[in-house]
């Protein structure tokens, strides 16, 4: 138990294709919606964390005078790590009320700074010359080894997407809601063998924001507080080619086990799970690296219906990066869904859910953050 709670949470007003809003304004729109969710204003915020923009830009734009800033930027799990850092800051009195924002014009590319790391970085020297071009060719590259080692089939990989589309069908804000079959996945365009288009995340625009404060204050706010029970973070390598084990993420294992230990919970205590799904194999790695399944068994666990609506471990209940939305740094949307499930307000609400685990990934298995949330402050 951390003594810290999420008292405000909101996504941007729109999700999907938002060509008339800059990336900075997506951050701000999400922040303003989170203010409305809490009844707070910028004047009440004394700590800011963000990735994709800088806290400097944010505090200026929103009119915040911070005494604590965190610019940790390690990809899509940065927001999980911001939550962890915010917990520590609030526990030690470095800040009282912390705003975490995400905004990304991933599809429309409005007001988005240039990416690119020159030609002298390790990845630029030892991966880029071979035609590695972003997540579709890099995040995906371990999976053939996994298939050979553990017998994962193409049908099982496609089934991950089919199941998540079932959840998306229950979410009015999901980008894609129509049911799909394994054959639909196979019929979609090949992106990077063995991955078809429907096994890759969306590219959309959007944002989200969270506000955290001391749990003792949590009942002063209009929304049901969501308690942070435990947190974890880690990093491994900027190069997917240098993963210690192509069949498992060290960063997942470190971040996940620390968050579960910190929360003092076991796997049977978990009612709801989010695993950042940039590609179809991520939920498989996440289920195993978090310890919900033995090595090699997660694909069967999913195919058997355990993560579907009505299953014993509802997974990626917003539809995930594969069907709900994916701006580039999706971690914020996974956190938002965990908050909704703990508030009891999710469109595809898991009845009676009291503990949610939310696992994020950054880069191509480069980093991870994991947050355990609960409806009650744990004993």
């Amino acid at each position, binding site marked *: 138990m951390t003594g810290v709670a999420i008292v405000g949470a909101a996504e941007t007003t729109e999700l999907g294709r938002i060509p008339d809003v800059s990336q900075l304004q997506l951050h701000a729109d999400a922040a303003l919606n989170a203010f409305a969710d809490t009844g707070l204003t910028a004047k009440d915020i004394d700590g800011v964390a963000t990735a994709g923009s800088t806290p400097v830009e944010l505090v200026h734009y929103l009119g915040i005078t911070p005494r604590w800033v965190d610019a940790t930027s390690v990809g899509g799990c940065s927001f999980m790590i911001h939550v962890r850092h915010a917990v520590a800051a609030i526990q030690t009195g470095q800040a009282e009320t912390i705003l975490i924002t995400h905004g990304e014009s991933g599809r429309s590319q409005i007001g988005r700074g240039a990416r690119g790391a020159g030609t002298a970085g390790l990845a630029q020297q030892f991966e880029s010359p071979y035609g590695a071009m972003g997540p579709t060719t890099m995040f995906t*590259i371990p999976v*053939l080894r996994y298939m050979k080692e553990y017998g994962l089939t193409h049908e099982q990989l496609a089934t991950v997407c089919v199941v998540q589309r079932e959840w998306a069908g229950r979410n009015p804000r999901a980008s894609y809601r129509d049911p799909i079959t394994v054959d639909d996945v196979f019929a979609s365009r090949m992106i990077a063998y063995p991955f078809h288009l429907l096994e890759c995340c969306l590219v959309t625009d959007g944002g989200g924001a969270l506000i955290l404060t001391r749990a003792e204050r949590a009942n002063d706010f209009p929304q049901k507080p969501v308690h942070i029970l435990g947190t974890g973070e880690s990093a491994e390598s900027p190069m997917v*080619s240098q993963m210690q084990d192509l069949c498992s993420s060290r960063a997942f294992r470190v971040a996940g086990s620390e968050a579960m230990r910190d929360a003092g919970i076991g796997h049977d205590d978990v009612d709801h799970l989010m695993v950042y799904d940039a590609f179809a194999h991520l939920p498989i790695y996440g289920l195993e690296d978090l310890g919900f399944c033995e090595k090699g068994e997660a694909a069967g666990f999913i195919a058997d219906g355990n993560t579907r609506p009505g299953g014993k471990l509802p997974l990626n209940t917003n539809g995930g990066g594969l069907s709900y939305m994916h701006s580039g740094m999706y971690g914020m949307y996974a956190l938002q869904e965990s908050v909704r499930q703990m508030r009891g307000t999710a469109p595809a609400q898991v009845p009676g859910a009291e503990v949610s685990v939310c696992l994020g990934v950054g880069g191509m298995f480069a980093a991870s953050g994991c947050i355990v949330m609960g409806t009650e402050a744990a004993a």
Partner: protein
Amino acid sequence: MADIQPRPLPTPTPETAHFWEGTRNGVLRLQRCLDCGHIYFPPRPFCPACGSKRVEVFTASGRGTLLSYVINHRRHPSFDGPYCIALVKLEEGPTMMSNIVECEQTPEALVLDMPLTVVFERQNNDIFVPLFRPAEQST
């Protein structure tokens, strides 16, 4: 074919210069720790296993096996049609990314754990990129 652009080329740093000097001269260079024996890649002037600065550069065998790959179907300006991006497990232990050449770029031709041998593709006078082709069947 006519509009194929050069590969994105690396800019060597002081710590990696020996590797690119090696490929220019037709050899694949790795590093070995003189204290703990760990063999590692990518280059750095200390051992990532034990921290020792007593490390040496040596010429690797150039042999390896196909550890994993994808076949990219999206257009890349430096490649003509679908191409394999591979992870090669070197005989000495480290893994490196590369392309597989002299081989059809299909799942049927690209079989995991197939033996591979390094070849060097000239990009300009300074940069030769290490690629891998299927090894001869004889040992």
